[in-house]
């Protein structure tokens, strides 16, 4: 522990070390970070809250980090005090772009791998990103206190991947603290100090931006050149918008205002803006009075890859949903949405997400933080459709998919990396084939672990690929993917009809060869989910006018014939009151009453991937 921390703005770059930790979801990154906070004296043991850095409830529950933060910690080595900036990175593929910006703010990375599990596909993907950014990598095996730990085996694997010796891998336990002090020493010794031009016009890269109810947007930056000072006017180089710098400082681990930030330093800015869109990840901050000529490279607008309709179960909650989305948007620059009307579900929104995890997080936050009951439609990707007459359209909602006269449909594809024990090669190949994948290559990471690379339609990943992969590999496989353009495909829209009426919420775009299976599955599922009505209800699946599957819900013949005497009356009336309330929630498809639960069940269970099962 260092006796006195260095003052921000007055810290020479050679005493600064900026690093991040690259790790898979449950490989112990947060625990290690907590231990570092404690050992550097930034947080005392009593104030220690497990996983201090992950602020949101959802993050704590899922054990994942959505929003990165940067903590400044003092560390003394051989009599010299250094300032270590730990930049926390999101670990999930949906947030690859955010990861890349976090990496760009660092000179080095701690590659943290569970000594009982080995490296996972997402970690591998982030490791590649880090190596592309020329980061110095410190390989670390965590959880060496576990009985199942195999540090020798996985040290070999890491050494093979990054080109070092197995004995260069540090061994730590975030839980017990073993090996954490040597790791901090190594960070100082191995990582290069940041380099920049202190006299040049200020340039700082935004690597995160978070909305805070009390402070407005808090922007996290890494200063590359020059310096930023309180009360200056700053400029966002992508939009040319200028703001007054109300507060500038470092996180340690609570925000501490400083006299400014100099070359190589990492900290936060508050300008009073209320929307994270005005402070975008990847943008360059400069001094408005003395602006830099060129922005730092790498800025890019977030692009939604997956769309889903979100509807309130109770139609009168629509305004609340709109307000909730408006609020979430303040904190989520990647969230895009527009109002949409469904004949089946009423008023709602079509929402674009970075990926499936992003979708689940948004949905969960809407339900939890805003107390909304929601139905979400099957997630889908964006299709580019060219008509025979050359007209082009982009379809983000299956119900808008045109009938007939289609010249070509293009769907997004991804480059997927799957890591798994080699015994599952056959099972994975079979699955990927079913999912219309094509093998790009395969490598052995070690004797019994293999990396397989595939091109796969994103729609298949969005559907149920991940669940299938996990179940076919007994949970051992890990998956990472990134967008890789698009391809033409033979796709059709399957509609589901209740009593002859199309239920827009159930329409899906699927490959021609799978249309029949989808139709049969959905029809039989709905047959079980929709309560019997006073009349017979046919359920059909159709491609255009062609019926491909059919089921029947028989008419109800009897409801309740129970006895109704003195003691039954209160109970019966209470039941009636409940049924009355239930009836009001019913969604009507023509004359068919469908309980919202049927929609939820039909649109979720085994259709659509949920990454909750990831652990």
């Amino acid at each position, binding site marked *: 522990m260092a006796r006195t921390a260095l003052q921000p703005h007055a810290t020479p770059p050679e005493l600064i070390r900026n690093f991040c930790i690259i790790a898979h979801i449950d490989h112990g990154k947060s625990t290690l970070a907590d231990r570092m906070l404690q050992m550097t004296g930034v947080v005392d043991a009593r104030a220690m809250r497990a996983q201090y850095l992950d602020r949101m409830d959802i993050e704590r529950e899922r054990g994942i980090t959505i929003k990165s933060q940067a903590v400044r910690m003092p560390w003394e080595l051989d009599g010299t005090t250094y300032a270590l900036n730990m930049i926390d990175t999101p670990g999930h593929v949906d947030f690859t772009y955010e990861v890349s910006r976090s990496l760009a703010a660092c000179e080095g990375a701690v590659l943290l791998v569970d000594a009982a599990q080995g490296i996972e596909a997402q970690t591998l993907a982030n490791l590649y990103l880090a190596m592309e950014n020329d980061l110095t990598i410190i390989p670390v095996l965590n959880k060496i206190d576990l009985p199942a730990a195999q540090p020798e085996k996985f040290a070999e694997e890491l050494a093979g991947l990054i080109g070092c010796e197995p004995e260069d891998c540090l061994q730590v336990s975030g839980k017990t603290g073993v090996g954490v002090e040597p790791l901090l020493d190594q960070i100082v010794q191995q990582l290069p100090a940041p380099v920049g031009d202190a006299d040049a016009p200020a340039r700082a890269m935004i690597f995160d931006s978070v909305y805070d109810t009390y402070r407005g947007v808090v922007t996290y930056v890494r200063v590359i050149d020059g310096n930023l000072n309180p009360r200056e006017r700053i400029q966002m180089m992508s939009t040319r918008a200028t703001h007054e710098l109300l507060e500038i400082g470092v996180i340690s681990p609570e925000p501490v205002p400083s006299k400014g930030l100099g070359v190589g330093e990492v900290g936060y800015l508050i300008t009073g803006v209320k929307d994270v869109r005005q402070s975008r990840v990847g943008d360059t901050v400069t001094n408005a009075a003395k602006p830099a000529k060129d922005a730092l490279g790498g800025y890019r607008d977030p692009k939604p890859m997956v769309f889903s309709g979100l509807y309130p179960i109770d139609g009168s909650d629509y305004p609340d949903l709109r307000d909730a989305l408006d609020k979430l948007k303040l904190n989520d620059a990647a969230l895009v949405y527009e109002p949409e009307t469904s004949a089946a579900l009423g008023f709602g929104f079509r929402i674009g997400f970075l990926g499936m995890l992003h979708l689940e997080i948004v949905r969960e936050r809407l339900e939890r933080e805003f107390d909304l009951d929601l139905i979400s439609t099957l997630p889908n990707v964006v299709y580019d459709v060219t008509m025979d007459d050359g007209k082009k359209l982009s379809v983000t909602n299956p119900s808008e998919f045109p009938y007939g006269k289609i010249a070509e449909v293009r769907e997004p594809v991804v480059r997927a990396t799957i890591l798994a024990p080699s015994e599952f090669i056959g099972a994975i190949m079979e699955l990927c084939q079913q999912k219309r994948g094509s093998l790009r290559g395969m490598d052995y990471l070690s004797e019994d672990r293999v990396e397989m690379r595939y091109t796969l339609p994103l729609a298949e990943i969005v559907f149920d690929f991940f669940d299938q992969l996990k179940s076919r590999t007994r949970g051992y496989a890990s998956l990472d993917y990134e967008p890789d353009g698009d391809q033409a495909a033979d796709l059709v829209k399957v509609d589901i009809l209740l009593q002859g009426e199309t239920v827009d919420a159930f329409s899906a775009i699927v490959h021609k060869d799978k249309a029949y299976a989808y139709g049969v599955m959905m029809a039989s599922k709905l047959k079980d989910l929709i309560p019997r009505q006073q009349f017979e209800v046919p359920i059909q699946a159709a491609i255009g006018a062609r019926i491909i599957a059919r089921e029947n819900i028989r008419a109800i013949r009897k409801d309740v014939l129970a006895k109704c005497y*003195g*003691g039954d009356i209160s*109970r019966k009336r209470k039941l009636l009151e409940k049924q009355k309330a239930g009836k009001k929630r019913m969604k009507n498809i023509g004359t068919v009453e469908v309980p919202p639960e049927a929609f939820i069940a039909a649109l979720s269970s085994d259709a659509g991937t949920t990454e909750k099962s990831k652990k």
Partner: protein
Amino acid sequence: MPSTLPEGDPAPPDGRLPDAALATLHDRPFGVYLHVPFCSVRCGYCDFNTYTLTELGADGASVATFADAAVRELRLAGTVLGDTPPVDTVFVGGGTPTMLAADDLVRMLDGVREVFGLAPDAEVTTEANPDSVTPESLHRLAEGGFTRVSVGMQSAVPHVLRVLERTHQPANVARAVAAAKDAGLQASVDLIYGTPGESVGDWRTSLEAAIALEPDHVSAYALVVEEGTKLAAQVRRGQVPAPEDDDEAAKYEVADELLGAAGFEWYEVSNWATTPAARCRHNEGYWADGNWWGVGPGAHSHVGGVRWWNVKHPNAYAGRLASGASPAAGRETLTGEQRYDERVLLGVRLVDGLPLGDLREDGRRAVAGLIADGLLDGPAALRRSVAVLTLRGRLLADTVVMRLLGVR
């Protein structure tokens, strides 16, 4: 009655009722229900508030002292209600009332007489298990003022009785009904249909057996698998199949057909009688917003829009009364909306029907559609201005109620 008590407000310790409720005592029928919470064994399908002797233990209530506790509650009722009309109907249910000695049943009826007086034409019914009545006990009941016996027959088919865990011999039902008639009592039999494993043929057999006994009244209930019963556990574990709606609907139609052919007319969804005079007036009171005091553990009462219910356990019940407190566990004071819902809910189940004039605007608007869907009787609505269920409507009574209440 089901054993789970509803949620409600606390009842005052002295059982006091609001004046507005008491003011209704003289303008509608007044009944007394007596709940005897004992059985020799608990049947697998039953979730009523009843206890076997081994379940009860030594302290508190017992078969021998139960009548005393009941009379104590009757006296409390007299104090709470004050000036009442004489009682029109008494119904002793359970449990198995005939677990008590006939003298005890009569002693409870004497308690009713002593506290409220009994109308000259009062209907006094007890439920009876075919195994626990004798010609002598039935004569004793008739002498003491009972007018009617309702025999728990359930089925005439041995394998069905076994699934229900009814222990009586089918032959005893015939003996009990004959002995009741011999004693000058009206006789009714209760049947259950839809028991797992019961075929439509089995059900016909039971109906024919019941008809052959020549009772003047038959009740037929669809088997409901109640939560917490042994049957529910068996269904959950897949040991017996769950009763099936379509099967029960078919059996209801068979019941209505056979009973109709034998001269019985339905007068409530689950009840048939040979003549209007043979209907159970006590139950009709429940359906016509009548007042009644329910005596016994877990018993429900209703006076002028206030419903309340007693503590469930016989020991707690006896303890409350011994200390001079009301055994009421909770109560609810119905709002106008709730009373309307109940009126529709109960009224429409009767052959006499629900006067269309009692319906609100949205309910009256639903009538034409219900007639068109074959659920309400057209001529009854047109000529007599009442909502009467058709056969199909009786099977879908809950749907009809919902639509009459204007829920779409």
